């Protein structure tokens, strides 16, 4: 069964003084996330990631379309008891301690009174906040608040967890801890839907990802399949004559270290690059294929969009 399903889910806001104009922040979105998956929702800032999450959480209402979570409508309380949510830059009642907040939210989630304390202690331990559990949240650092955010999202042991930019504001150690925690939750069989603009995190953790930009879905699939769509690159190393200008013309990024030269270039330019190096009298040392990353896919898609946009703009200008 799909854990999350959206069907042409869209959101736009009326803007302007008379609210006559509509600004679309999410174009009709259709996607399905399967149970047990770690699903990455990627996109630059302002792409519509948080809007999608707010729609799924019932904080804002869609302009059109529909969605279900765990097979139930978005306002179903039974479904809500089985999901957890970490908002982007979470804010909490700062007059409470971490323990009080978690106890409060666990009772709202319907955790039985008998299990509540045990569950709270378990998550406090899990996010490494046991020592600071009785400190008021107003005295917490940003990183500690992010941990509280994760703790409140899992305090009721939900089946499905939504995380909006979970690594934001964390130092490298904190990021690794969150990554480990997500991996642990995945191993426990939880479904995780997380939005991020940090692509390396998504690449490490996600079974599948969706890429969003300007409110539109630009790609969805397994990371390996998506990066396969990106044309590969080759690292060429040679010795002797530089021949840099000719290689730059072929689209290469070049570096030199003494008499050793390196160029990273698109696979399609390989033969011509080798010809250039040989004709210059240099000695070829190695040719190494470089695996494309999610970042390459991401950048290629965004660049393609910018190109299409500028072509369309120049076309409109010409007509």
């Amino acid at each position: 069964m799909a854990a999350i399903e959206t069907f042409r889910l869209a959101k736009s806001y009326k803007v302007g003084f008379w609210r006559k104009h509509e600004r679309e922040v999410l174009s009709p979105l259709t996607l399905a996330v399967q149970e047990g998956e770690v699903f990455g929702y990627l996109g630059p800032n302002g792409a519509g990631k948080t809007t999608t999450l707010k729609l799924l959480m019932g904080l804002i209402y869609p302009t059109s379309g529909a969605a279900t979570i765990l097979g139930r409508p978005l306002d179903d309380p039974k479904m809500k008891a089985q999901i957890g949510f970490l908002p982007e830059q979470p804010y909490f009642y700062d007059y409470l301690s971490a323990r009080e907040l978690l106890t409060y939210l666990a009772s709202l989630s319907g955790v039985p009174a008998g299990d509540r304390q045990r569950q709270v202690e378990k998550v406090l331990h899990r996010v490494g906040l046991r020592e600071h559990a009785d400190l008021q949240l107003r005295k917490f650092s940003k990183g500690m608040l992010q941990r509280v955010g994760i703790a409140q999202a899992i305090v009721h042991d939900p089946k499905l967890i939504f995380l909006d930019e979970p690594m934001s504001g964390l130092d490298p150690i904190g990021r690794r801890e969150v990554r480990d925690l997500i991996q642990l939750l995945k191993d426990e069989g939880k479904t995780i839907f997380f939005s991020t603009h940090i692509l390396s995190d998504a690449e490490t953790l996600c079974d599948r990802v969706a890429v969003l930009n300007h409110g539109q879905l630009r790609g969805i699939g397994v990371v390996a399949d998506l990066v396969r769509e990106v044309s590969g690159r080759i690292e060429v190393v040679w010795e002797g004559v530089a021949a840099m200008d000719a290689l730059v013309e072929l689209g290469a990024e070049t570096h030199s270290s003494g008499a050793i030269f390196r160029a990273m270039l698109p696979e399609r330019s390989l033969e011509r690059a080798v010809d250039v190096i040989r004709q210059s009298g240099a000695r070829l040392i190695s040719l190494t294929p470089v695996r494309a990353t999610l970042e390459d896919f991401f950048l290629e898609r965004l660049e393609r969009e910018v190109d299409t946009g500028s072509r369309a703009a120049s076309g409109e200008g010409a007509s």
Partner: protein
Amino acid sequence: MIGRIRVIAFNTFREAVRDRVLYNLVVFAILMVCGSLLLGRISVQIERLVLVNLGLTAIALFGIVIAIFLGIGLVSKEIERRTLYTVLAARPVRRWEFIVGKQLGLIATLVVNAGFMSVGFFAALLYLQHGFEAADRFLVVALYFIVLQFVIITSLALTFSTFSSPLLSTKFTFSLFVIGTFAEDLRGFGALAGGSTRILTAGLAYVLPNFAIFNVVSEVAHSIPVPGRLILFNSLYALLYATAATSAAVLIFDRRNLK
């Protein structure tokens, strides 16, 4: 459902206590001690009258100020600080449960506050009279009416809080309180006028809250009994008005995009 409302109400009460709202009790205590000590010296025969007027007016005023200032932030502050995301997004809490819980929490705060002030007030009265009189039981009725006013003011502040900024909500709620205090004058003016003015004032008199009916301070200060019918009528009026205002708050909040 009841459990969730109770949990939200308790947390609202806890917030008010931790935000040191009950510190106003210290000011009230000082007022009562000074009042009872001074009144014994400067007023002859009318010590009770003056103390009852001073005490009940202070209890009402302190409570109304707290009701307005906490009430206008009940929802808007939660939206502004985004603290309600963790409560409403992924918990089986319906929006109306959140509103009702917040309101009950604030009412509980005001009742506890008024309760402490009442203890101080009766202590001052005991010091002044060296005992209680039979007519003093009507003071409890006056205090009950003050609490009913709190309930209406809270629901009005809460309603404004669901769609307006704290500053505007304060202005709206305070304006309604002032107009409602002179509701009887509005009715009187309507009776004197004719035509459309009469219809308009009559309509306003029915729609706007009538706080004048809850003010029995003068009567109880003069030991005039409060009829049972008035107690029943005022209780029903406060209940209906607060329910209507809270329902409006729920309807507005239910449709709002929490951006």
